[in-house]
């Protein structure tokens, strides 16, 4: 029976997604949106979803009834509303993007006009929390202390406010996601720089006194319209205030708060949520004095957030699902606890474990970015570790972030060029490892606390790990190691690797795999094995049939009875979101789970990323929220004894385990481990291609500069250089001349016999083509060929991809198909795979082959409307698969996948694309032709059509690039845009009869007009800056311009081909020409 409390007039609901993944807004909103859609579906409500992020789970079949791959902006949403006429709209499930869009829709009267009811928290309440001044006033009304800030609109006002408050101050932009444009300023100079930037994003900037060193604590609060409130979870930051919560290591529940502290803040949180009038979920962040009960409210997020996704995963309480139901009018007392099924959803989870979230940074991927972390977010993903001691979770978590660290100790030292004190006091992404080095150097907990302000409790616990590490090192052999110490080490989260390295020292390095095997054998012999525990929300107080599991050494009994009937299939997930691996692999994992289940097997997931749908315990029969290391996967497989294990849907992490799992006798479903190794191993793969007569760019693995020069004499510049051991910065580089080569090798690589360098010929102006396919026993069953808009040289993860291809010769397509078939046969592929090709004229060369699902699988699956992962999973389950009748030639529309960059958050990073990937997300849009699809996609990643009364700045590298852009310049001119151009480009345009205004580089300060000044004055609305090449000299030239464009929020394109395509699109189409059509109508 339907609840009498819900509004019966709501029959169709529009949900706004969050668009492409970006720093500050990542996969967590796929999870919250999916949950909300599920909640609506359960009520029989029709759902319409707008989200251009085609790789998400929520934009898959079976989640929403109608899906629009369109930008989440007012204009597009209005058109969808006009077409769909929904009764209600959900704004809280798509991050800041959806919230901001919702506020605009409300303010402009569109919601009223179409009579669309906002479900859940009213828009006024949202505005009360978003507008800092309103927010402070609102909380003043109930005597809640906030960080008093001065709202200013000019740099001058900011300076006077700061001198009143006293430095250090913090500056924030209003209406910004993830602390965009905010930061600490110790002096006026820093303040001016930051305020100017912040004002470019937001009309209002806030200056406030800094509370550096206070504890940072968050509460996730839920309220229904009957005024019943609960706090589902509280969380404490390991890093004190001063570091954005998205950049902090966070534990749940809080560890250093007394009962009085905990409930004092809890009570305030409830008071706040009632006063603001939230209906659904919100998050309250506090600064809390470590030496008194003084607090300040930092902010309130009136929507589902990254923290709420984390809280859901940390507690098992489905916040987004419940919030969606509350939006419909339910009372909390009407909903049941989705874990126990028969207790009430009105309760507060009791945890009998601790979780630890650790951010994942990829700062090494960006040129010039500052490594310091602070009040604005730079991390690209996060992991969550579950265990029963802090030592256990921190060590697990530090392994999970996957940056070559083995835990808190037993790592390669982190460089501290300016000394340990400075590295502790000025936090970077590596600070936690510096703490280990400080212990090693004899620092006391007190001294580390003085430098870091990290609560001593955490430091004492880290010291425990360090002490155990020291004791392990005293044992000279595994036989000497006492069982008690071995057990203690495992209880403190030491991996077999760490134990092996600490005990065996030099001997360990000589044979890592064998040594780890010896540790494993020894502990199994001693009965030291992990146990499986459930997350049941009530700390075992009530029986729960929960399938949400983790492993720990702090326990003696498994919560789960294993049937050992070999009816389960284990799917390995993709780990932390990072550059190069994100929501697309989550989509693949989830779809594999769904097919496994549909085919009558028990689906088992292993993954540890709290921002994903695959770690939603509803998605599988058993979820192990745990590590994807060989050690932990084997622990789980030993318990689970599955029929088989799927490695090919979770990206590179599971793929890398293939050989070792195979050696341990694991039944890997699909393509065999030897084939995977043959494709991964450059030499073997290359030999195979030679054998098959398949062309590839020439390459060689070399160990001396002389050899490298000899090879280059043969192939010519430019070359792509890939060191096997990276000293600093980028892992790969294109070198165009001997000087560059020498410099790169000197700076970045250490060429030697131990550390060879791979040098490949770099083919210029070649097309790059992707082949995504599924094969069964070596025969291709389904495939999709797509082409990059950019020429080869832009990483395939950054490139703009078009499917089906529109500009490829039929001949090229046929060759690609033929070569792919040959490779599939040779490697006897059964499952998903991807091959990247270069094509110039009709010659094709293989660049790379991965025997796993690729980043573009969801994109091609959705554009073609054939689920590649479903087919691949069937193949892996041994079910015969028929070739689908449809192929890409049947499509009368085009899909474009475009990349989202997050340079605005990465202060100092040069926003230029190269052979290393730097995008954080992507969108995929469908249109009638390339231009329409591209325009949608570019608008969806934050580009905008330049305003007619503003100019476009062109500054385009090589003569070839200039010539390529000539057409575009004509189009711009014909469309009435003012063109600004730097020296060479200006001359070229004039020579070709296109009027342009010459502007000057920052290196010519005496000339006028200055490009930077025009940018600062917002007279330019699009910057096309194409570096000639990626040499430091060339890069430094345009860098200030590019950076200014990013900092001033002016669209920037750095690739001539993409710029050309975009200019063509917006000069031939108006925004109003864009068709509003749902996915199912293509």
């Amino acid at each position, binding site marked *: 029976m339907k609840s009498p409390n819900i509004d019966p007039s709501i029959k169709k609901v529009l949900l706004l997604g969050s668009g492409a993944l970006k720093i500050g807004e990542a996969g967590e909103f796929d999870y919250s949106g999916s949950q909300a859609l599920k909640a609506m579906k359960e009520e029989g409500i029709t759902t319409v979803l707008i989200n251009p992020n085609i790789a998400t789970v929520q934009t898959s079949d079976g989640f929403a009834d109608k899906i629009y791959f369109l930008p989440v902006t007012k204009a597009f949403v209005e058109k969808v509303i006009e077409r769909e006429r929904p009764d209600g709209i959900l704004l809280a499930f798509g991050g800041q993007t959806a919230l901001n869009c919702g506020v605009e829709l409300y303010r402009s009267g569109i919601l009223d006009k179409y009579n669309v009811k906002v479900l859940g928290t009213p828009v006024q309440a949202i505005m009360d929390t978003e507008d800092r001044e309103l927010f402070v006033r609102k909380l003043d009304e109930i005597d809640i202390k906030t960080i008093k800030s001065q709202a200013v609109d000019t740099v001058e006002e900011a300076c006077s406010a700061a001198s009143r408050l006293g430095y250090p101050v913090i500056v924030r932009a209003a209406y910004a996601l993830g602390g965009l444009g905010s930061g600490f300023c110790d002096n006026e100079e820093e303040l001016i720089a930051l305020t100017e930037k912040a004002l470019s994003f937001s009309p209002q900037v806030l200056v406030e006194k800094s509370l550096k060193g206070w504890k940072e604590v968050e509460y996730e609060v839920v309220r229904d319209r009957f005024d019943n409130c609960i706090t589902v979870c509280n969380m404490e930051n390991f890093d004190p205030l001063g570091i954005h919560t998205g950049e902090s290591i966070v534990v749940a529940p809080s560890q250093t708060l007394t009962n*009085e502290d905990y*409930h004092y803040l809890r009570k305030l949180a409830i008071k706040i949520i009632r006063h603001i009038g939230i209906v659904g979920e919100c998050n309250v962040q506090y600064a809390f004095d470590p030496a008194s009960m003084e607090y300040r409210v930092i902010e309130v997020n009136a929507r589902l957030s990254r923290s709420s996704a984390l809280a859901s995963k940390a507690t098992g309480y489905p916040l987004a699902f419940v919030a969606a139901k509350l939006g419909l009018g339910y009372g909390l007392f009407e909903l049941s606890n989705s874990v126990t099924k028969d207790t009430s959803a*009105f309760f507060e989870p009791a945890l009998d474990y601790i979780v630890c979230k650790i951010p994942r940074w990829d700062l090494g991927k960006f040129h010039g970015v500052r490594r310091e972390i602070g009040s604005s977010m730079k991390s690209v993903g996060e992991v969550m570790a579950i265990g029963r001691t802090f030592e256990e979770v921190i060590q697990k978590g530090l392994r999970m972030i996957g940056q070559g660290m083995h835990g808190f100790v037993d790592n390669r030292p982190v460089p501290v060029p300016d000394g340990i004190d400075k590295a502790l006091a000025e936090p970077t992404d590596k600070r936690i490892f510096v703490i280990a080095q400080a212990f090693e150097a004899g620092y006391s907990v007190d001294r580390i606390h003085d430098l870091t302000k990290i609560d001593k409790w955490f430091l004492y616990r880290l010291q425990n790990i360090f002490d155990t590490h020291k004791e392990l090192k005293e044992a000279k052999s595994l036989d000497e190691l006492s069982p008690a110490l071995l057990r203690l080490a495992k209880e403190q989260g030491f991996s077999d690797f760490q134990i092996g390295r600490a005990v065996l020292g030099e001997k360990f390095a000589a044979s890592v795999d064998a040594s780890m095997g010896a540790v494993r054998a020894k502990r199994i012999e001693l009965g030291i094995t992990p146990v499986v525990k459930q997350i049941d929300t*009530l700390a075992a107080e009530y029986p729960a049939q929960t399938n949400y599991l983790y492993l720990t050494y702090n326990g003696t009994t498994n919560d789960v009875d294993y049937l050992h009937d070999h009816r389960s299939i284990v799917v390995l997930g993709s780990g932390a979101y990072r550059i190069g691996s994100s929501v697309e692999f989550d989509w693949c994992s989830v779809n594999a789970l769904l097919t496994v289940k549909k085919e009558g097997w028990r689906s088992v997931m292993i993954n540890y990323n709290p921002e994903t749908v695959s770690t939603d315990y509803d998605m599988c029969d058993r979820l192990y929220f745990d590590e994807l290391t060989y050690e932990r996967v084997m622990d789980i497989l030993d318990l689970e004894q599955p029929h088989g294990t799927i490695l090919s849907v979770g990206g590179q992490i599971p793929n890398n385990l293939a050989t070792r799992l195979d050696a341990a006798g694991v039944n890997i479903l699909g393509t065999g481990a030897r084939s995977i190794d043959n494709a991964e191993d450059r030499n073997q793969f290359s030999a195979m291609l030679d054998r098959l007569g398949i062309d590839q760019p020439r390459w060689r693995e070399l160990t001396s500069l002389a050899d490298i020069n000899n090879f280059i004499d043969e192939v010519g510049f430019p070359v792509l250089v890939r060191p096997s051991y990276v000293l600093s910065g980028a892992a790969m580089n294109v070198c165009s001349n001997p000087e560059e080569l020498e410099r790169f090798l000197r700076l970045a690589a250490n060429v030697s016999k131990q550390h060879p360098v791979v040098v490949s010929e770099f083919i210029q102006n070649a097309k790059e083509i992707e082949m995504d396919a599924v094969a069964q026993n070596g025969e291709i069953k389904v495939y999709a060929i797509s082409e990059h808009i950019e020429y080869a040289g832009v990483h395939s993860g950054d490139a703009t991809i078009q499917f089906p291809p529109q500009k490829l010769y039929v001949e090229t397509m046929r060759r690609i198909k033929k070569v792919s078939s040959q490779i599939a046969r040779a490697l006897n592929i059964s499952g998903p795979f991807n091959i990247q090709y270069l094509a110039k004229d009709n010659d094709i060369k293989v660049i790379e082959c991965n025997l796993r699902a690729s980043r573009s699988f969801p994109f091609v699956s959705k554009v073609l409307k054939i689920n590649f992962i479903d087919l691949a999973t069937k193949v892996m389950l041994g079910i015969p698969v028929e070739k689908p009748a449809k192929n890409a030639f049947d499509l009368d529309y085009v899909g474009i996948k475009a990349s989202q960059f997050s340079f605005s958050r990465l202060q100092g990073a040069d926003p230029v694309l190269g052979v290393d990937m730097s995008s954080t997300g992507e969108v995929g849009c469908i249109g009638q032709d390339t231009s329409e699809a591209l325009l949608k996609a570019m608008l969806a990643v934050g580009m905008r059509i330049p305003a007619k009364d503003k100019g476009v700045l062109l500054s385009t590298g090589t003569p070839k690039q200039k010539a390529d852009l000539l057409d575009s310049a004509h189009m711009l001119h014909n469309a009435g845009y003012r063109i600004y151009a730097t020296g060479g480009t200006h001359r070229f345009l004039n020579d070709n009869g296109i009027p342009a205004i010459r502007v000057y580089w920052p290196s010519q300060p005496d000339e006028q007009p200055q490009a930077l000044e025009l940018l600062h004055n917002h007279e330019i609305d699009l910057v096309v800056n194409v570096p000639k090449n990626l040499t430091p000299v060339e890069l430094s030239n345009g860098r200030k311009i590019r950076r200014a464009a990013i900092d001033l929020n002016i669209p920037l394109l750095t690739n001539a081909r993409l710029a050309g395509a975009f200019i063509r699109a917006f000069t031939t189409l108006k925004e109003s020409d864009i068709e509003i059509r749902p996915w199912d109508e293509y």
Partner: protein
Amino acid sequence: MREPKRATLVLRDGTRFEGKSFGYPASTSGEVVFNTAMTGYPESLTDPSYEGQILVTTYPILGNYGVPPRRRLDGVSEYLESDRIHPKAIIAQDYSYNHSHWQATRSLGEWLEEEKIPGIYGIDTRALTKHLREQGSMLGKIIIEGSATEDEVPWYDPNQENLVAKVSTREVSVHGEGDKTVVLVDCGVKHNIIRCLTKRGVKVVLVPWDYDFNTIPYDGLFISNGPGNPDMARTTVENIRKAMETGKPICGICMGNQLLSLAAGAKTYKLKYGHRSHNQPVRRVGTNECYVTSQNHGFAVDTDTLPADWEPLFVNMNDGTNEGIRHKSMPWFSAQFHPEASSGPKDTEFLFDDFIKLL
């Protein structure tokens, strides 16, 4: 590596759990119960309702923020709930030897040692809790290496004893000032009940559990929480019955709810494993008002046995058990949960206001 003494928990049904000793290293015995709260061990340890019990904390890490000073303010403990530790022992997965909090004056281990209470860590408390959930609360012994052996320590069943008599004050004391006087019957009172009353401007006369308060003048009667079986406190029930004749306001908490029910003529029974946590959801009967409450009780009121002029006031949303009663016409009500919290959520502190308004 620390090498603490071995400590073993032996349950009445023969189940054994091996752990490590902290706090005071002496063997002991009692009734093993679990609490799922994630904070508040100093409050729980001084809660008289735990008298005679061995407390298992399901939150795995214990002792993080040390122990606050033992300070008295207006005749009651400032930070704690009574003057001593009541449980016979405490059990956790992991003990934090080092603590950190500005209010702490010593570690949990040091405090336990001072008060001669053993602690054990290194126990799979989740497995233990599941066992107690399935089998019900049961007697247990804690055997510390080097102390009394299993044979030397007898089983101890606190439910056979009049625990209320054991923990109640021996003499009458007065707390706070005000025009109105509240008689607070100490069945094992938590000091925060006294604080919650006095901070509302009333004079509290704290009397022993069996004191005949009908002989002194007062404006309202308050029955405190307390340990064990309510049937043991017959004298208090008799005194409440007499007080009912005056028609003055009566309020009870926890044991107070059970004693008021008994005085009204209802019956109580022992729950399989009790409610001991900070997250018990209760609903005010007949409304949409729900509260998260702190609880600590092993017995419950049988709602079906309430006489016709009484009605349930609150109900537990998880298992439907009674969470409070009220008289249909007289100013008498009580709650099974703890509106004074400490430890736990403070959402229902308004019940004190409701009571004061009746005076």
